């Protein structure tokens, strides 16, 4: 299994830490105490971020790359809950509620992370009401993404979920026609709550709406507006 490769503590990635919400509002002395214990690391795809470090539970700040957040299932399987892109926090639940079960984070695209001891992060946030408010904002947004995902899973069919994913991808990239899937179809199926077979059926359905796939993860959307209409019409009913 791949593992974290820790970099030198004085690495310049530390400087980037203080610009990540919600750390921006920490007091200078608290930020310095965090930087003193921060451990920057590089992780290759497949690396599982350990939820415990040398001094107990840890918080990761993802500065580059993306990770799959997964829940462990009986019989050793895992369910892909969401894909988190940098910049984001991994393991923030344990900062404020130690009883909650932890999700497993596995690196999807090469990642640069900073590992921080949860106890020290908690102490720094205790000292700063302004940083606590920033953290409230961050966690509210995270909660909303999960609620939106639950709504999608409950109300949308497989082809609609796929259409929604492609529309979001197109809007992010600013290119309505030529798209490239950021990960393989097996991961996409897991993200959308489908089996690979259901995903293939969903792509076949969207072919009727002008969505064409090519080997290597390239997707062409003839008419993005038509895809939006398919999604909006079905979702609003």
């Amino acid at each position, binding site marked *: 299994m791949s593992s974290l490769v820790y970099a030198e503590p004085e690495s310049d990635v530390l400087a980037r830490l203080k610009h990540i919400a919600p750390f921006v509002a920490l007091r200078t002395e608290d930020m310095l105490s965090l930087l003193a214990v921060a451990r920057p690391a590089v992780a290759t795809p497949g690396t599982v971020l350990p939820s415990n470090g040398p001094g107990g539970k840890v918080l990761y700040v993802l500065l580059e790359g993306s990770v799959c957040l997964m829940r462990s299932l009986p019989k050793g399987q895992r369910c892909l809950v969401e894909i988190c892109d940098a910049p984001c926090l991994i393991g923030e639940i344990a900062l*404020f509620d130690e009883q909650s079960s932890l999700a497993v984070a596995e690196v999807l695209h090469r990642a640069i992370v900073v590992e921080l001891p949860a106890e020290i992060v908690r102490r720094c946030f205790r000292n700063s009401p302004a940083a606590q408010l920033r953290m409230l*904002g961050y966690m509210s947004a995270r909660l909303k993404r999960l609620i939106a995902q639950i709504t999608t899973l409950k109300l949308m069919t497989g082809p609609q979920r796929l259409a929604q994913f492609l*529309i979001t991808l197109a809007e992010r990239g600013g290119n309505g026609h030529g798209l490239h899937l950021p990960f393989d179809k097996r991961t996409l199926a897991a993200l959308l709550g489908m089996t690979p077979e259901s995903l293939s059926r969903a792509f076949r359905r969207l072919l009727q709406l002008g969505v064409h796939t090519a080997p290597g993860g390239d997707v062409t959307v003839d008419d993005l507006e038509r895809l939006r209409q398919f999604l909006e019409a079905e979702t609003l009913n």
Partner: protein
Amino acid sequence: MERRTGQAATGHQRLSQRDMEIVRAIHMFDELDPKVVDRLVEHATVESADSDRLLFSAGDPADRFYIVLTGRVRLFALTAQGKQTTISFIEAGFSFAEGAIFGMRFLPVNAEVCAGTRLAQIPRDPFVSQLMSEPDLTFKMLAALARWQSRLIDAVTELKTRSPSQRFAAVLLSLTDRVSGPADVPLPISKSALANRIGIAPESLSRVFVRMQGLGVTVEGSTIRISDVTMLREHCLQAGDAA
């Protein structure tokens, strides 16, 4: 579409007891004493919409947040071509725009309030001042959000890994103490509430009931008869597909 008239908007009222029950129940306030919540939102007012209208636009100052009391609100963004793209619908019992008041000075999206919707609007400054003066409150709210995040991750996992019939079976198994053999389970909620709980449209429930018959589950009035609890549990543990 009408635009809101900001602080001077007419028709604002204080929240009723029923409104306050909805406000106290939102995720963020889960760990707080109801009296503390009442104090935090004492400046809240009700805003009602008789027709669909724009509540705020992206770039407006983040000077308040909202809780939907009845009805719903659509959050949307504009594409590069100027088309509206829906981000999400906020239903009754949920808050929105609080992320912006905690972290940003301006609202990042647009909101359209649907006809018949009532909102509690909570002004930012007195709310944030209270939190800044009592950091323990913020930590309790963070704990509540962390706990809810964990629960929602469980809910996503359940929806992704179990088919509707497996989710229905899981609900039934949670309602009986029997570990094998037959069991009668009273259905404690309406069929539409059951459909919502297992994450399907109400009109799809009959298909799930048909599927359940093959697993020895029949409905008699408000009682559900399970012929073999073991068989139902095994069905739950099989690989599922939310599609």
